[in-house]
């Protein structure tokens, strides 16, 4: 595997039963970049993101084939071949969704949840990690005095930042963002965009978006998924002249 590449896909297909959703996807993604995938609804963009954390594992009839390598802990792994345990993969490949989905528990418990799943018991270590992740998500100052109140009482933008912080608490190397700002108002969306730009120094970000302006502002690479095929997009990324 070429060291500068974080992700390499070659002829990757994805099937739901007999329906081919992704058709011979080939792409290379460098580390510490933001890659945006655009395209009409129902073309498999979310399915594409799910390849990286095997979110399709429990879906009956779902299967993937082809060559897919991602670099985790400087070691190439192939999620399609299941050469890494799913929980471990999902700790290294975090994900946030279109609708913020905090669990119906306190902010602190939401943040501690991934650490608990990872078997991290040390309380002071946990607290330090939680504080760091909330700071990274620009949320610490807003919630530090109400960590033990329900996460469901936060605003939409705060909820999404909490979900982002919850994904970051395990320090993932890849972050999957499935239309992370589509349910937010303009201000909250701008905060998330700013956050993602800052985060790419720590992790590689793959993002699904329907918003060309947003993609132009923050993405380093832009692809378009249509009829199962992935092609470089006509929409310029921020490094290219508009």
């Amino acid at each position, binding site marked *: 595997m070429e060291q500068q590449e974080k992700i390499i896909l070659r002829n990757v297909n994805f099937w739901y039963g007999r329906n081919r959703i992704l058709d011979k996807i080939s792409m290379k993604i460098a580390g510490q970049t933001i890659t945006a995938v655009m395209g009409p609804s129902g073309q498999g963009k979310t399915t594409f993101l799910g390849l990286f954390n095997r979110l399709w594992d429990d879906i009956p009839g779902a299967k993937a084939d082809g060559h897919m390598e991602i670099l985790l802990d400087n070691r190439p792994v192939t999620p399609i071949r299941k050469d890494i345990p799913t929980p471990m993969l999902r*700790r290294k490949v975090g994900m946030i969704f279109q609708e913020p989905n905090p669990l*119906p528990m306190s902010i602190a418990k939401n943040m501690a*949840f991934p650490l608990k799943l990872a078997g991290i018991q040390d309380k002071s270590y946990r607290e330090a990690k939680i504080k760091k992740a909330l700071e990274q998500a620009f949320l610490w100052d807003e919630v530090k005095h109400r960590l033990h109140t329900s996460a469901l009482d936060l605003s939409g933008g705060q909820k999404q930042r909490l979900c982002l912080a919850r*994904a970051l608490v395990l320090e993932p190397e890849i972050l999957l963002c499935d239309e992370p700002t589509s349910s937010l108002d303009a201000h909250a969306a701008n905060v998330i965009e700013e956050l993602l730009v800052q985060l790419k120094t720590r992790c590689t970000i793959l993002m699904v978006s329907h918003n060309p302006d947003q993609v132009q502002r923050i993405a380093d690479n832009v692809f378009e998924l249509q009829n199962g095929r992935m092609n470089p997009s006509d929409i310029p990324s921020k490094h290219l002249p508009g």
Partner: protein
Amino acid sequence: MKTSGDAIAKAFFLSCAGISAVMTSAVFLFMIVLGLPLFRKGSFMDIWMGTWSPAEGVFGIGHMIAGTFWIAIPAVVLSLPLSLGTSFVIAGLGGPRLRETLISLVRFMTGIPTVIYGFLGIFLLVPLIREELGGPGMCVLAASMVLAVLITPTMVLFFSHSLMAVDPAHVQAARALGAGRIQRLLYVMLPEALGGMATGLVLALGRALGDTLIALMLAGNALGMPAGFLDPARTLTGHIALVQAADYDSLEFRSIFACGIALYLFTTASVIAVRFIERGKKEAA
């Protein structure tokens, strides 16, 4: 704009609701009125707490109340792990085919007549208990075990329905954070489903308290306080069935209305408990 048809429909439905409410209250009043001859004789508390000594003119149903709980509580305790395990498999641990098979099986179990369970208890369980554990065989344990099987479908359906009603976005969030099936079930689904599951538990207890046939066929119906699981016991429902089959106007007969009042109050308490649980669940949401 309201039409005359709307007004007629509203009046009809209101009267239906009124009749239901009146009938429910009338049943309670009916039991008090018909039990009055017994309540007027002797101490009121002796009826509820006292022993059953017709020769001495004492018609206490305390032992029947105790017998009812002696059988119903262990039945719920026995059924609980069975129901939890089955509903966990249905709601998260099993595949779609296993889930469908189990749900069909559990629904089928709800349709099996109680007397069939009673027969199985008499011909299989009672001899086994008599030979392996001693005692008469027809006892608290036999009735509780069969009653546990009887109430399990109720609990499984409530439990699995509550678990499957958990917000899929929360389950998805847990999956994306690396939670395995059991972790999702224990840390996300179970806490969210607890309100609905508690409702199922209370209703199953209500069913166990109110069941007649299993206790009548398997509990031995002895008129004494059971001292252990291998002792026979008589439940309130069993007492009603036995006395009304043999008598119709004595004070002994009137005791069945005291039993009815006790059962009515237990059922009311169950319903109130369910309402409290549901209210707590709504407030938590």
